[in-house]
């Protein structure tokens, strides 16, 4: 047990923070203990306390193990590297251009697209039998049948990384935009005034401050990319697959002995994710050093126009891939017969929608309920925490801050198994509330992450004014701070909602099959590879968070339509 004193620094009675930390830490610690126990228990309880490394030996001896490991590792690094570079350079190059707000407007709905849906869309687009080749065939390509090209599921994981990159770009874009108001952008102009190129000016003057604020989200991307399951199943290499998929296979094996192998592999997975994080951290220092040297030598990188256009094009492609992918989901959901190389379905039908309607509504509604309750509760906890920090005048220590984000940094595949055993033992699995509880573990950090910066950037003198006008702390909170921060609060809620909707493993494991949601259904159906059903389910899965993102951006605009200072166009930049 970590020293609680560290979390409670400078606070007399901080039960709230304690509750939150318990909520996040206890399940994860319990799950980790279970995991470690499992890994060492291959031959039964008797060897529990002897170090039995047999399970680890068995994992390492698995065919293709090192390839699986290196795959998870490099995907975990390349994804944030590309996504972060594109986002940063794009913002540097285009923040002040008139078209920027359009990009920003498109980016939000793209953020709402669940990973699995985006991956399916990409699959339908770029596969040899996919839309692009259909468009070119047979007239241009001459193909009467799909070419035997290794585009998706390629052994190096290129299409897999591509899917992750196009989904992480909107996420990093979102968190960067949230961080910008806390950064003095005039620094760029000063640097540009010295004759630096536009991008270079931004990188040396603004990026360091912004990066410090978005570092955690970047780490979360590393953790996610190195251990994701659903995207890997759709587009990832198969022989061998990334380690997360191997773990899943072992977990699914009815052969008992595979259980400890799965547990050992899960521990190795944690190690890989940590290694990727460590490598990134070293990379940070190297980049910092190089950038300093370049800046000290007075390099200007003046002629960056071609580069700016290049990055602009990459961004357009990334966003375009997601949007076209979604359009293809729509097409497939209403496609009857659609054989290669026809660019459009030969027969259109609503059969998929009609036949699935009842189930779509039922599981969609349940997913929405779980997402709504878990993000509402998370939001309340986050607000209570932030307000508590404000009133008690405390800031999270670094350790506390990182603790909140452990659920984002520990691979889900590594600890959900232990957690479901825990819930089962307590007899609380299979209920809506237990699913909500587990969702909160993953939703809370995202809501906190999104809201903390705008919340803390709030000019607290407004609250001083309210209090000097005789209003209590509570009234100042409800009537001043909350309404003024309506847009970021709703934005955080929408993001939490989207995070909850996309949860697959926790819903399945804790729900015990009794709480099927649109996401567990989509994945179960996807196992059959029926594109029409994938289309309908992935669309509904996309639509739910989209509705809340739309509301989150519309409601403040309507509520504050007559309040210029609160319009997002002014607040965002």
């Amino acid at each position: 047990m970590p020293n609680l004193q560290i979390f409670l620094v400078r606070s007399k009675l901080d039960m709230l923070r304690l509750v939150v930390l318990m909520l996040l830490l206890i399940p994860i610690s319990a799950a980790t203990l279970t995991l470690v126990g499992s890994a060492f228990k291959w031959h039964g309880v008797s060897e529990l306390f002897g170090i039995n490394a047999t399970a680890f030996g068995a994992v390492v001896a698995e065919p293709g193990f090192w390839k699986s490991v290196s795959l998870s590792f490099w995907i975990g690094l390349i994804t944030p590297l590309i996504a972060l570079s594109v986002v940063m350079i794009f913002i540097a190059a285009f923040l002040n251009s008139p078209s920027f707000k359009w990009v920003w407007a498109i980016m939000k709905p793209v953020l709402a697209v669940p990973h699995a849906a985006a991956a399916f869309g990409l699959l339908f687009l770029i596969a040899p039998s996919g839309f692009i080749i259909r468009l070119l065939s047979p007239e241009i390509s001459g193909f009467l049948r799909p070419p035997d090209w290794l585009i998706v599921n390629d052994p190096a994981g290129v299409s897999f990384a591509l899917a992750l990159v196009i989904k992480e770009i909107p996420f990093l874009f979102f968190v960067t935009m949230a961080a910008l108001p806390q950064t003095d952008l005039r620094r760029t102009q000063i640097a540009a005034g010295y004759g630096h190129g536009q991008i270079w000016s931004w990188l040396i003057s603004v990026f360091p401050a912004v990066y410090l604020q978005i570092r955690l989200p970047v780490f979360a991307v590393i953790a996610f990319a190195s251990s994701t399951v659903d995207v890997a199943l759709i587009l990832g290499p198969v022989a061998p697959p990334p380690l997360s998929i191997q773990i899943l296979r072992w977990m699914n094996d009815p052969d008992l002995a595979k259980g400890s192998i799965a547990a050992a592999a899960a521990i190795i997975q944690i190690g890989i994710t940590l290694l990727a994080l460590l490598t990134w951290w070293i990379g940070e220092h190297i980049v910092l050093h190089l950038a300093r040297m370049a800046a000290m030598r007075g390099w200007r990188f003046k002629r960056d126009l071609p580069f700016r256009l290049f990055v602009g094009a990459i961004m357009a492609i990334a966003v375009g891939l997601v949007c076209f992918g979604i359009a293809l989901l729509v097409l497939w959901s209403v496609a009857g017969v659609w054989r290669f190389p026809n660019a459009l379905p030969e027969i259109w039908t609503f059969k998929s929608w009609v036949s699935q309607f009842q189930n779509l509504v039922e599981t969609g509604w349940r997913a929405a309920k779980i997402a709504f309750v878990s993000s509402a509760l998370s939001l309340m906890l986050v607000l209570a925490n932030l307000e508590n920090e404000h009133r008690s005048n405390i800031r999270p220590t670094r350790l506390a801050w990182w603790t909140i984000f452990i659920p984002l940094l520990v691979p889900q595949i590594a600890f959900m198994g232990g957690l479901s055993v825990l819930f089962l033992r307590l007899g609380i699995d299979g209920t809506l509330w237990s699913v909500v509880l587990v969702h909160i573990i993953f939703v809370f950090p995202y809501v906190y992450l999104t809201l903390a910066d705008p919340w803390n950037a709030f000019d607290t003198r407004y609250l001083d004014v309210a209090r000097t006008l005789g209003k209590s702390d509570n009234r100042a909170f409800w009537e001043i701070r909350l309404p003024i921060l309506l847009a970021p609060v709703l934005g955080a809620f929408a993001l939490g909602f989207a995070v909850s909707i996309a949860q697959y493993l926790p819903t399945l494991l804790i729900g015990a099959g009794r709480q099927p949601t649109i996401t567990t259904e989509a994945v179960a159906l996807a196992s059959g590879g029926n594109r029409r059903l994938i289309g309908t389910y992935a669309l509904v899965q996309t639509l739910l968070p989209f509705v809340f993102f739309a509301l989150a951006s519309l409601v403040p605009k309507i509520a504050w339509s007559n309040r210029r200072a609160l319009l997002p166009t002014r607040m965002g930049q």
Partner: protein
Amino acid sequence: MEQQAGLTPHKDGSIIMQNNGGIKQNNDGLVLQDVKILHNDKHLLGIDAAIKPGEVLTLMGPSGSGKSTIISAIAGFLPAVFTCSGTILLNGKNIANLPPQQRKIGVLFQDTLLFPHFSVLQNILFALPPGGSMAKRCERALSLLDDISMVEFADRDTDTLSGGQKSRVALVRVIASMPNALLLDEPFSKLDADMRDSMRQLVFEEARRKQIPTLLVTHDPEDAKAANGRILTL
């Protein structure tokens, strides 16, 4: 004492009044007795002063001298790195340990800090002490706006007002809350030069008319001159 209050400062504003011993024992007004402010346990500044109803006391000092900290201390929202000791008497009652919302002290900041989500009228309604029907409250708020000739701006978005208009609304807002004392934290420094004079007039007149003890902190000698009262220099 009367003459002290009426003293005109020299051109350089250097008259220093740190002695209030001659003040007649009257419970009314704002009295700071042995108020000391520590920054991380290090002595920052101390002040003794008495401000009578309707009087404007000016506290002069360069930036960084801790002027604003005194305002925070008196109003009750001193940041936690500071500690404050001593007695703050308002109309005879020690308010030093009360939360800001119970002190009945109004503050005007450098920025107007009008609530951006409220209209002009709503800003004032928010400040009015609780009680009374909505119609009565509106009537009262409008009459306050009328005092500054801004009735027709009642439903306006505050962000669309000019700087001078915003300052006037901020003044009316603080007056609406019927404070027992008024603290002014360089409230004129961000105004255009031509607005500044009229705003000073308005604020000081209002303070005198309502018989509110007022403490002005500023680095601008013009402010002090316009306040036409005693001056303390840090």
